[in-house]
């Protein structure tokens, strides 16, 4: 049975109160390294959102129409990863063609979306929480947008922090992690307001 949650509230919950990055801390590597630059953050946010939405929906279909009926539930991890890898591969080619500039700024982080925990994480949430098709679509889109929102905000904050007198020992990743901690507190503060499961 899918949980009784309205898609709209699930959508906002996944963006804000259960933000995949700041509430679940998934997808940190690229979050920290790419947020140095606002434009790249935006691009990567878009890419993650697209990949997450597509893989969420495709993996839901694979799970419900192939793995459950054939009793191959135990293969889900392998199959999910294969689907994610394929989608990233296709997206990479499309971005290279449509926007070489974005392709260049994303660089190595584009193929690395494959191993972005946020994506696998969201797909596994979909499976564990037993979402319906529509809920899965909304949840994965929301999670993607949430990731995008988080990385864009962090990039903006880091731009300010760069000009601030940060103690030498905290420069770079140190102050970034502290910043992320504050952001997470702000997001988690509202965590009870909207249900996700």
């Amino acid at each position, binding site marked *: 049975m899918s949980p009784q949650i309205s898609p709209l509230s699930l959508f906002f919950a996944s963006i804000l109160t259960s933000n995949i990055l700041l509430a679940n801390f998934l997808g940190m590597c690229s979050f920290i390294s790419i947020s140095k630059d606002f434009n790249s953050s935006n691009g990567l946010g878009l890419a993650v959102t697209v990949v997450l939405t597509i893989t969420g929906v495709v993996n839901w279909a694979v799970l419900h129409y192939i793995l459950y009926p054939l*009793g191959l539930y135990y293969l889900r991890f392998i*199959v999910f990863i*294969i689907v994610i890898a394929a989608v990233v591969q296709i997206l990479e080619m499309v971005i290279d063609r449509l926007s070489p500039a974005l392709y*260049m700024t994303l*660089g190595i982080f584009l193929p690395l979306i494959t191993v972005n925990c946020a994506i696998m994480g969201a797909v596994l949430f979909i499976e564990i929480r037993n979402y319906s098709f529509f809920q899965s679509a909304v949840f994965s889109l929301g999670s993607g947008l949430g990731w995008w929102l988080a990385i864009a905000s962090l990039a903006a904050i880091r731009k300010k922090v760069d000009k601030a007198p940060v103690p030498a020992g905290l420069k770079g990743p140190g102050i970034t992690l502290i910043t992320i901690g504050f952001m997470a507190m702000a997001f988690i503060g509202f965590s009870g307001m909207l249900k996700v499961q």
Partner: protein
Amino acid sequence: MFVPVLLASSAVGVITAILALLISVTDKIVNNYGEVTIDINQGKRQLKVKGGSPLLFSLAEVGIYVPSACGGRGSCGACKVKVTSDVGPHLPTELPYMSKEETAANVRLSCQIKLKKDIKIQIPEALFNIKRYKGKVERIRNVTHDIKEVYIRLEEPNEIDFLAGQYVQLMVPPYDKIKEPTERAYSMSSRPSDRNHVELLIRLVPGGIVTTYVHTRMKEGEPVTITGPFGEFHVRETGATMICVAGGSGMAPFKSIFYDMLEKGKTDREIWYFFGARTKRDLFYLEELKQIEAQWPSFHFIAALSEPQPEDDWKGETGLITQVLEKYLTTQIDRTKPMEGYLCGSPGMLDACIAVMKKFQVPPDKIYFDKFA
């Protein structure tokens, strides 16, 4: 028992196959750039090629061989080409090889530029003379325990024109786990007057694709493909004292240069040739060099061993080649005369020798070398 295993593997197989199909279909649609035109030297030559592959390979397909020591992996920085049309900003893979002036002039690494639309480039006219030669290995000889002298007879075309000191790229066929033909650059040790042959000195590099092939598989009589000649490493026609430093197979271009100068009777120039090796068994061509010394009063050959073994019974110079070079520059070489540096060896040796030469006021723009990496 077998059914679930079979079912599981076939399910994963089918899903993977569908996704692979999707990827290749997208690849066909997205990466189809159609035919693109390469305009060389402002309309001198117009080439129509299939888009989608790197400029370096597209040019090679139509017989224009831009030098590339690494074979298009973006690790040697040799395949520089000036692009006059817009192909986007420099890639991170190109920047390490570009000086400020080159970046400003939009000089690019042709192996990193994917042909997506019509392009205008400028290349030296000399590149049109670079050809791909088919030949046969006539003789392979061990000159030391890890250096082989490979003598190649050219067949198609059967004559090569080059300046002593230049290099060619040797291509070896796929073997073992290497799935594609591989090219690496080697200086020619044969003299330019021996127009039907090319001789290379190839030292075994552990893990090296081409050197391993040459040392373990190449046989006399085997067909080979080489491309060339390339490089700016040749004797400048000045009267300056030539200070030459080599190590290992870096002997190759100097062998060619010295014999060429002897043949042409240019023995009035003063030459100091420093050759560095680890032990006595790494030294070679000593007899030949002695003969040159005998015919050429102002030619000085100095071999130095960095780790002479007790059984070597070595009476010559010891120490790193840079230390020996420094010693001779301080005590033996007349530094009031103009000097030129000629270097061939490992990148580490090159850098160290350049530093020593600069210290002794050899002008940096008069230190010549080809860096292979």
